């Protein structure tokens, strides 16, 4: 079920709240949050490979706050151009970079500067030269049309009020036949109007 943003929802405030929340996840991931973070969570609850996570810098994996596992959907082929929409501190991005190898490219897009900094530093520490991190958000991807083989994302679309626009952007940048491998949240019950307007429920 897609949850659409109410017409009078303060989208600018939501964007600011999301940036504040995830800047805190980047700089103080051991703080108090209403969602899990870190490599132990990713391995035990989402099925990530413990050894692959252990090979990444803790500064990257400690800020992981995904809700699913896009890598479990299908193998990302060597040589592919992959984009991680809302890459955060870079856990999924760096795993993708390892999979595409030196002939591929892994491009992360995130609107939170503190997260981008972690991802860039993490790629450098791993010696991954096929990684690029760009500023941007899901509704305006800084990428050319039909330029990407695989789009991954994890726990990001649920933070975007205008989901149709975000998905249209994914369609725009993918090559025909390209794959979207998306981790996100679904809601099985209809939410009340009050819940839909509760900004705290949108930021996690």
């Amino acid at each position: 079920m897609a949850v659409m943003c109410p017409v009078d929802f303060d989208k600018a405030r939501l964007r600011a709240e999301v940036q504040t929340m995830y800047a805190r996840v980047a700089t103080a991931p051991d703080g108090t949050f209403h969602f899990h973070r870190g490599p132990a969570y990713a391995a035990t609850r989402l099925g990530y490979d413990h050894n692959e996570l252990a090979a990444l810098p803790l500064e990257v994996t400690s800020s992981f706050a995904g809700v699913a596992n896009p890598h479990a959907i299908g193998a990302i082929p060597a040589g592919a151009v992959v984009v991680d929409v809302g890459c955060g501190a870079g856990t999924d991005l760096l795993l993708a970079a390892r999979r595409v190898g030196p002939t591929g490219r892994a491009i992360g897009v995130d609107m939170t500067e503190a997260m981008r900094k972690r991802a860039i530093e993490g790629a450098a520490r791993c010696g991954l030269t096929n990684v690029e991190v760009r500023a941007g958000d899901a509704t305006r991807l800084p990428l050319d049309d039909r330029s990407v083989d695989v789009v991954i994302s994890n726990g990001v679309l649920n933070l975007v009020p205008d989901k149709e626009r975000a998905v249209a952007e994914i369609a725009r940048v993918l090559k025909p036949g390209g794959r979207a491998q998306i981790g996100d949240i679904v809601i099985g019950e209809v939410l009340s109007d009050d819940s839909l307007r509760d900004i705290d429920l949108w930021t996690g």
Partner: protein
Amino acid sequence: MIDVFASAGFTQVALTQRYDCFDGTSKESTARRYRVQGVNLSAVRAGS
């Protein structure tokens, strides 16, 4: 979410895995009440 991807021109849209990602958090009871889960979605961009 499946409908949004299908409307955007994707094919083979499917939820492939589900995760109780809020279990053990302060929002566990809310997540269970509203049946909130993490999911993997797979989709292929149409066209040739």
